[in-house]
């Protein structure tokens, strides 16, 4: 009687539930009490990371229905996705922006966990799994950039291989293992495809599952209160009391903020995808095209910048030792600072460290966006010398300006804000270098400037120096060598002006 009064879907539910027997577990897990103060917008980043991981899996599978993991065809299949299949561009954009959002949200999640002291006893293992998940998220971002298989991907692999080759003794073999052969080619793409599509996502799901399981078993980290110290002997009891004295059921009282934020993040990904479109691909992965300036994706720009600043003598040791120290610190953190204060008000060293690291990474990333250490390869033909610098100049000076362009000086030296930033801007060079000093600098180089003595004929040097000597503000005279006028006053017969190249 009772059985027949049920709807068909209730009967189906009962049929399945009597077999899988998950209802009690789900009910208990969702209703488990959490400290009421943790129902906060600060606690939404972990769940958002997981939602983004799921989004990446869904969009990734959709892309895999079209993408061809072959060095000869990958780039073309991306063009098909971008331009021929309906909304293929949108799915690529969702996957690309989803990747950026995921790295960003995982980093924010990690900062929040650090600043709230959540890695302390008994959640050390949760933190360790989290560090692994961060590394795998970055691994996914890097291997995903390689699957784009454009010029940036190709030369990014080149940079990776060059770094690997610096490993002592096994460098050569390690490069071949990384590339799957002697050069960057089909085998390289295939192995990064396997990594990106099978190895890393499967491991990430397993780790993320364990990560969430630990959160369920140990409870969400309580809101830090200054003066409430973590002690191994009493913590579990205190936490239990807190959740029962001042606790609320996770569903629905806390979870709605997670759900709301997840929706906002997914919308933000879709919005960026629709407005800004997919990333690349840039030029074809043709190694014979040397007219390229490879740049890594946004979240790897800081590494790219750091590599420009390392002094050559310590570069190789630093490349291998610094990550070991950095990761070692992250892994050791929950054991070094396992107990004690959680509140940021009482952890000045932790807060300052976080600020320094964040500002450091942000600065390096910002520098990486315009790479002032790189010559602007097209400045000599693309950027112009401002009119006022050649206005009313002599033929010799104007010839000098031409040589300044023709000999690629502009690639490293800016004039009027245009041109490279590798060397100093030369807008007022004449005020701080005398004519002789400019001649010496041009011919012999130095201070990280190549010597141009062999690339310039003497008349060319004369002309370019004449031009550079005009580069001073109208109200400021060019620098002169005082000893030269003294020397000249000693020789009464010699009456030419000091600036001998000036008419």
């Amino acid at each position, binding site marked *: 009687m009772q*059985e027949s009064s049920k709807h068909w879907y209730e009967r189906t539910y*009962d*049929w399945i*539930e*009597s077999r899988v*027997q998950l209802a009690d577990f789900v009910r208990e897990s969702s209703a488990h009490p959490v400290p009421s103060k943790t129902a906060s917008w600060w606690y939404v980043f972990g769940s958002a990371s997981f939602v983004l991981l799921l989004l990446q899996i869904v969009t990734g599978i959709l892309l895999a229905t079209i993408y061809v993991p*072959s*060095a*000869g*065809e990958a780039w073309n299949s991306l063009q098909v996705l971008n331009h021929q299949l309906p909304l293929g561009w949108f799915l690529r954009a969702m996957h690309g922006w989803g990747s950026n959002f995921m790295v960003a949200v995982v980093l924010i999640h990690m900062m929040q966990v650090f600043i709230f002291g959540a890695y302390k006893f008994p959640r050390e293992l949760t933190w360790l799994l989290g560090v692994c998940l961060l590394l795998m998220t970055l691994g996914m971002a890097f291997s995903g950039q390689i699957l784009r298989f454009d010029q940036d991907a190709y*030369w990014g692999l*080149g*940079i990776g*291989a*060059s770094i690997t*080759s*610096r*490993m002592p003794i096994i*460098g*050569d073999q390690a*490069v*071949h*293992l990384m*590339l799957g*052969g*002697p*050069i*960057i*080619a*089909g085998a390289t793409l295939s192995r990064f495809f396997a990594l990106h599509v099978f190895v890393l996502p499967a491991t990430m799901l397993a780790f993320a599952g364990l990560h969430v399981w630990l959160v369920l078993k140990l409870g969400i980290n309580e809101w830090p209160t200054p003066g409430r110290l973590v002690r191994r002997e009493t913590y579990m009891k205190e936490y239990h009391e807190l959740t029962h004295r001042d606790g609320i059921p996770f569903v629905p009282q806390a979870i709605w903020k997670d759900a709301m934020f997840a929706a906002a993040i997914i919308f933000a990904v879709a919005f960026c995808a629709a407005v800004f479109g997919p990333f690349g691909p840039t030029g074809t*992965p*043709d*190694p*014979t095209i*040397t007219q*390229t300036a*490879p740049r890594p994706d946004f979240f790897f720009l800081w590494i*790219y910048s750091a*590599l*420009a600043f*390392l002094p*050559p003598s310590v*570069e190789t040791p630093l490349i291998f030792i610094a990550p070991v120290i950095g990761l070692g610190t992250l892994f050791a953190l929950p054991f070094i600072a396992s107990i004690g204060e959680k509140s940021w008000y009482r952890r000045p060293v932790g807060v300052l460290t976080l600020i320094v690291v964040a500002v450091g990474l942000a600065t390096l990333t910002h520098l990486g966006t315009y790479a002032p*250490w*790189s*010559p602007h*390869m097209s400045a000599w033909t693309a950027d112009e010398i401002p009119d006022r610098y050649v206005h009313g100049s002599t033929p010799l000076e104007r010839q000098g300006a031409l040589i300044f362009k023709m*000999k*690629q000086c502009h*690639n*490293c030296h800016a004039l009027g804000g245009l041109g490279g930033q590798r060397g100093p801007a030369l807008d007022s060079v004449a005020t701080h270098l005398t004519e002789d000093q400019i001649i010496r600098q041009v011919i*012999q*180089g130095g201070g*990280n400037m*190549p*010597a*141009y003595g*062999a*690339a310039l*004929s003497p008349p060319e040097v004369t002309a370019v120096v004449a031009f550079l000597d005009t580069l001073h503000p109208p109200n400021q005279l060019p620098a002169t060598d005082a000893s030269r006028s003294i020397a000249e006053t000693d020789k009464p017969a010699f009456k030419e002006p000091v600036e001998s190249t000036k008419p």
Partner: protein
Amino acid sequence: MNSDFDKQHPGPRESASASSPVVGTDSRVAGRRKFLFKLSIAINAVIGLLIATPVIRFLLGPLRPKGTYDTWIPLGKVDDYPAGSTLLAFFRNPTTNPWDGETGNVACYVRRQSNDSFTVFAVNCAHLGCPVRWFPQSQLFMCPCHGGAYYADGSRAAGPPERGLFTYASRVDGDTLMIQAGQLPTLANQARLKSPGDCPGRSSASTNFQLVKEIAPCRKAPNTGTNEPTIG
């Protein structure tokens, strides 16, 4: 049909206590099962090792003894490269797969100092492997990544590289320019070539001679550029 089962939602503990017969009361049977359990783990470990061996060998497939990837390949006619010039040249890597597409191609710079003297540079910057670009006007190779710069003879001019450009060994075979190539030039497979023999600007013929005759340190790279005629 099995609606009773559906309604009851039997928990695992419940059903176990109700129906599972305790067989292991005989200690001899229990001991034998324990032994068989351990044996099954041991057998699986052996089988696992057996399977792991070919898997590891497969994964290490790309590893080969040093230098075996390199072979001598032609890089066109000698007359394609006018004396005093530095030109971008391409070749197909000696080992490729059909699906490598254009990634199987490799670029290099051929510098012909005189009629019988060639230097073939890799395009990969000695710092981190980015493609350097040749500027004949200023007689410089410039790298777009971290600002490495090299003189026409390949020696370091500026920036982070610690050494000059990588070179391929080259020789003239009749009217054909041959180079020894086959793998991505990196510090691991190029660093040792610099000393004793292969100094930038020294021809490959004399390199071989040097290697046999004496271990001579490279003379310090001149920092005043080259004696190349300039253009423009």
